[in-house]
Every structure is written in C-alpha cells, then in structure tokens.
C-alpha cells in the first residue's frame, strides 16, 4: 500500500479514537451514556467481520472458476481477518450489552448471527486443517465459504422479522444520531476499513511470496 494511505490510516484512526473519547459528549438515550462510546469501535468491527466473510466467499467463487491457488489464499486470509474482527465484535458487544441491557448475552438475533459467524469461521479453519491435498482443500473450503453465506442472510434479514431484536436496526438510517456522532461514527467506519485493507494486503503479499517459493 502506498505510503500516503498508510499515513492517512494511522492519523485517521488515531483521530477517530481521540474524537470518540474527547470530541463528542456522552450519548443521550442510553443507560450508560459514557459507555456508549464503545459503539464507535463495536459497529466497525462487526462490519469488518462481515466484510471478511463476504470477501472470503467472493474469492471462493473466483477459485472455483479459475482454479488459481492465489484466490484460495486470499479467501483464507479474508476469513482469518474476519474471524479476528468477529471476536472483537463479540467481546465489545458483550461488554456493552452488559452495561446497556444488564446481561452480557441475550440471544437476540444480532447476537445469534455473530455466534453463527464465529462458528462458521471456526468450522472453516477446522475444514482447512483436515484436508492435506492443497487443491482439494482449496475447492472444498471455497464451497463451504459460499454455502455459509446463505444461512447468514437468513439470520441477518429474515430472523429479526420473526423474533424481536434489542438492537436498533435503523438508528443510523433514520438520523437518530446527532450530527457530531454521525461524523465520528462514519469516520470510524472508514478508518477501520482502511486498517482492514492494509492488514489484508500485507497478509496476501506474504501468501503470494510463500506460493511463489513453493513453485
């Protein structure tokens, strides 16, 4: 990644962190207004977990079409990063749920989805480690990455209509946030996505070198 973007990423994320704690006041409407600042970090991590998941699936489709191992490695890297951010989202979510709703875990649809995501990633890595042949591993894990997206669609889009959710689904869209909150919130989304892209490109570069060395 060009130096400009690296510098931008560093300064931007630092700025977001400062702004999240000092730039905006306590959030009104929450049970613990000061603790609500965690949302600036919780929501981006959840978004990146999903991004990694979708990226992994897209590279999986690519692999099945082209049969180039590079796409398999990209798929695995995306899943690794997705798993990392998924863990972060689960932990930050549980902390805030404890403060806001009184219990760290309530099995509301979003919480179910994130657990499903964790399990899917876990199963994905277990599957990878259980297959020795490189090309077979690539094809089968790609198939699983594609297959696993479908239940997530149900969990994210269908289940909240069947079961009540604690999560506010449309606070962001309907403008329920104050302008300064919106600014920091979207800045955080952008900054963390930039960070994701940076790490992702580094890891893919490493995998490319490894592939080249193997022949």
């Amino acid at each position, binding site marked *: 990644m060009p130096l400009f973007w690296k510098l931008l990423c560093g300064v931007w994320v630092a700025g977001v962190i400062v702004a999240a704690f000092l730039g905006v006041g306590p959030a009104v409407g929450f049970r613990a207004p000061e603790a609500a600042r965690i949302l600036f970090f919780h929501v981006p991590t959840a978004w990146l977990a999903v991004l990694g998941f979708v990226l992994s699936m897209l590279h999986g489709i690519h692999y099945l079409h082209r*049969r180039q191992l590079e796409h398999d490695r990209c798929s695995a890297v995306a899943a690794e990063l997705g798993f990392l951010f998924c863990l972060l989202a689960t932990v930050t979510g549980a902390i805030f749920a404890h403060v806001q709703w009184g219990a760290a875990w309530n099995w509301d649809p979003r919480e179910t989805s994130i657990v499903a995501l964790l399990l899917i990633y876990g199963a994905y890595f277990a599957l990878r480690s259980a297959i020795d*042949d*490189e*090309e077979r591993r690539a094809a089968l894990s790609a198939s699983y990455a594609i297959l696993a997206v479908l239940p997530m669609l149900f969990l994210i889009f269908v289940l909240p209509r069947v079961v009540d959710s604690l999560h506010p689904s449309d606070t962001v869209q309907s403008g329920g946030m104050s302008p300064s909150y919106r600014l920091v919130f979207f800045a955080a989304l952008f900054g963390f996505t930039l960070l994701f892209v940076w790490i992702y490109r580094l890891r893919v570069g490493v995998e490319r070198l490894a592939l080249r060395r*193997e*022949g």
Partner: protein
Amino acid sequence: MLETDAGSGPAGVGEALPPVTLAVHDLAKRYGQRGIFRGVSFTLQPGQSLAITGRNGSGKSTLVRILCGLLRPSAGTVAYHLGERPATPRERRGLIGLVAPDLILYEELSALENLRFFARVRGLQRSAAALEALLAEVGLEGRGADLVGTFSSGMRQRLKYAYALLHRPPVLFLDEPTANLDEAGVAMARACIARQRATGILVIATNDHEELQFGDRILRLGG
C-alpha cells in the same frame, strides 16, 4: 458371445457417434513439492492404443485417473473430441470405460444389481438377459445373484470388466488388466483388449512385458 450385446449399439450418446479423439497436452502432476510426472503429450484415435509403463510410484495409475477425469492435473489438458467438437461432460462419461485396482464396486449388492445400477445411472436400457450375457462374457455366468462381498479377487476383477464394458465405451482404460486373473480370465482380458484395439481407443498401464505389446506406442514414465 461377443455379439450378444452388439444389437444395443454404442451406449447412451446416440446412434451415429462421430469418431472420438483423445488429445493430451503437456500433462503434469505433482503432490505438494514432489513432482510425479510432467510433459506428457499424445493424441489417440480409434484403432490406436497406448501402453503406459514405469517403475512403481512413477504415476501410471495417477495418469490413468487423470485421463479418466477422476483427478485434476497440476498442469496441462486432457480433451475428448467427438469429430471436431469437444464432448460434453455427459458424453465424456459415456465415452470412458475403466478397469483399475482402486476401482471398487458395491460389496453389499449382487453382481447383477451392480450392473443394473450402473446401467440405470448411465441412462441405459439393459434387459436382464443382456446383463446376464455380459456376465457370461467376463466368465461370471450363474454368479449374478451373489453378493460382490463374497467374490474372490479374481471374480471381482472380472466384474470390473463387465462394469467397464457395460456401455461399450469407445475409450477403454485398463490399469493392470490381468491383476488377480487366472488363465481363463487372462484369455477373457486378451479378447477384450483385441476387440478394443480393433474398434476404439485403448490405454493400458502395466509392467508386464507381454502386455506392453498391446500398445502401438509405449509411454515410459519416470525414466
């Protein structure tokens, strides 16, 4: 005996089948870092045959599996053409017959049930009499109702010939064609080989010097 099934014609892919060509270009296989073979190229047309030989571990069976489409090559292409156009995956299944040591039929089913099952999944109409005749052709007359699990290794090898010849394939692959066979079985295999050489494409993988002569060409792996 050979004529009993001839009336049903070449199976599954229609009556007027254009001549088949098997074209292999620059094939290579490796497992991880270890290369098995590379640079394998040849073209075969009906009436031509190829014998593959090489010491143990040189990749004879692997090459046969790749040619049948059971394994993906690390590099290179295997193409089946009907006349000028490439065969569809379904046509390709109808073109290929395989006898190999690692090819195993269902032990919980009888010999006839096995043949009936494979005929049905290939979309073929085969009467009980036709299947009995096929069993007789490979020297298993009267054993059709017995479970394959009770068969000796030689009988299993014979049944594999029946499986491979079920759809009268224009391309026949024989990996160690006479493994486990007695004298009569070897004669049956030789008759099958002679017939295939006359009408279709034959690929034999073997280390038996006598069997090598069945190939118009000989491909030596790992040498």
